């Protein structure tokens, strides 16, 4: 690791430590008679840490984690693929886009929690109803960005590509896709989190296992420590998924100028 990488990591850890210290003080030291972060609602960092360790040591977490991650990964992959496909398709067929535009927006505004029973009816209680919930979140985030990204393709590059005789498929591969990539990745970074949220909310609303189930169960018996432990584990795994997305992004976008100031 480089020196600057080390420094960055140190600073990141510092921020984390500060946040935990604040949490600890807020939940343990009363300020003016009241606790800033009452233990009932926030638990304490120590308890949460112990719980996380216990969950991993006893191994109960693995099954749940595995299910939630599968759901998240599926929701992310399907939602992103769908959003990209439909986004490109709509961007290339303006009439189609114009016709369906209000419907897409209406559907995007439906509260997913309310749709849960319908997903359950169609897809059962297994992972697929949770995947569906995640997909409805990821899809729209990716879709709107891809749609706009395709429309932002440089007209000169597009005209040139069409004149050298590219057909739609080739235009997609050689022009629209690479050009819209930064839009796609921007939406993917947002989506990673939302895919997980979708999966967890789906589990929360009805499931037999998964982190959402654990969290819900903990909530039912007012076990705030359990809730926070679950959320921390969630968040940690999102970082791993996001890291993977960033890896792919850097690979695909090698052609970009490194620094913006260098080349006027």
């Amino acid at each position, binding site marked *: 690791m480089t020196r600057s990488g080390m420094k960055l990591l140190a600073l990141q850890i510092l921020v984390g430590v500060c946040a935990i210290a604040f949490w600890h003080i807020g939940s343990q030291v009363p300020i003016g008679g009241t606790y800033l972060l009452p233990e009932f609602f926030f638990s304490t960092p120590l308890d949460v840490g112990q719980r996380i360790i216990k969950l991993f040591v006893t191994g109960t977490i693995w099954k749940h984690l595995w299910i939630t991650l599968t759901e998240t990964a599926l929701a992310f992959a399907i939602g992103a693929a769908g959003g990209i496909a439909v986004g490109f398709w709509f961007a290339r067929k303006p009439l189609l886009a114009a016709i369906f535009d209000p419907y897409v927006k209406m559907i995007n505004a439906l509260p997913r929690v309310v749709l849960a*029973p319908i997903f359950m009816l169609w897809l059962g209680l297994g992972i697929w109803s949770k995947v569906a919930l995640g997909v409805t979140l990821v899809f729209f985030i990716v879709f709107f960005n891809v749609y706009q990204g395709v429309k932002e393709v440089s007209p000169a590059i597009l005209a040139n590509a069409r004149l050298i005789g590219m057909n739609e498929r080739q235009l997609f591969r050689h022009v629209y896709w690479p050009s819209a990539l930064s839009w796609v990745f921007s939406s993917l970074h947002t989506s990673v989190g939302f895919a997980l949220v979708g999966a967890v909310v789906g589990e929360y609303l009805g*499931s037999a*296992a998964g982190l959402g189930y654990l969290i819900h169960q903990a909530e039912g018996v*007012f076990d705030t420590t359990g809730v926070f432990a679950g959320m921390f584990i969630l968040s940690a795994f999102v970082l791993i998924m996001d890291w993977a997305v960033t890896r792919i992004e850097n690979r695909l976008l090698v052609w970009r100028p490194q620094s913006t100031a260098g080349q006027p």
Partner: protein
Amino acid sequence: LEKPNITLGVGGKPLLYYLPLTLAERLGYFKEQGLTVEINDFGGGAKSLQALIGGSVDAVTGAYEHTIRMQAKRQDIRAVIELGRYPGVVLAVRKEKAAAFKSPADLKGMKIGVTAPGSSTHLLVTYLMVKAGLTPDDASFIGVGGGASAVAAMQKGEIDALSHLDPVISKLESMDAIKVVVDTRTTDGTVAVFGGTNPAAVLYFKKDFIDANPKTVQALTNAFGKTLKWLKDATPEQIADTVPEEFWLGDKALYISAIKATRETYSLTGVITPEGMKNALDLVVKTDPEFNAAAIDLTKTVDDRFLKAMQ
């Protein structure tokens, strides 16, 4: 009155579990007592309790068991009047499995639907299983939520058994999809499970609130007490006509049959008996081995002054 405008939390107002609340509101008993009650509906009982602790609501109609759990968490919560004397939870098995089902011991290996993990429906099955010599790990529990998703889960065959409340149970019975095997809506059923009553829905407050606003608490207690009296004598039709039409499950006949089924669960006097308290504690302890029962002082979970004053 110290505080004529109060906010009251409930986790699922249209549920029959909380029928007295809706009745009290519709019959105008709150107004009669000089109270303006804003009813906040929450995504579940746990959330309404959290709102109480957080100070967003003044009173909650929720499960008695909450007061016990909160004592363990050093939160002083007191129940003042009982609204439901039996939990009203029903364990039913899918029709096809009904023939093979003899006792809760047969739950082994089943997929059991509950409203939510950790909820009272979940706890009841766990309790039954523990009593039958099983451990909670012997079956898998699936949170299926309230309302339509629970019906969907049973219809689709996703679950073998279901521990749930009305109206879901009545709906599924009307669809002839289930057979009820344990029924805590009735006296017989409840006694068979717990050996006595087991307070379900109660009205509870934070102790601080009671101390600061005794008159308000009294007024609210009075309103509910009067509702219980009305409820004791009302016909199911009268009840149905009192609640908003939207609560009818889209079918008045179904609603009336659901009322008939749950009729016995509603408290007659509002009194929380010591025996009931013990049963409730027993339920908690049996289902949560880490729960320290010794630390619980059951007398500190209720405050019966107001009910007494009313009578």
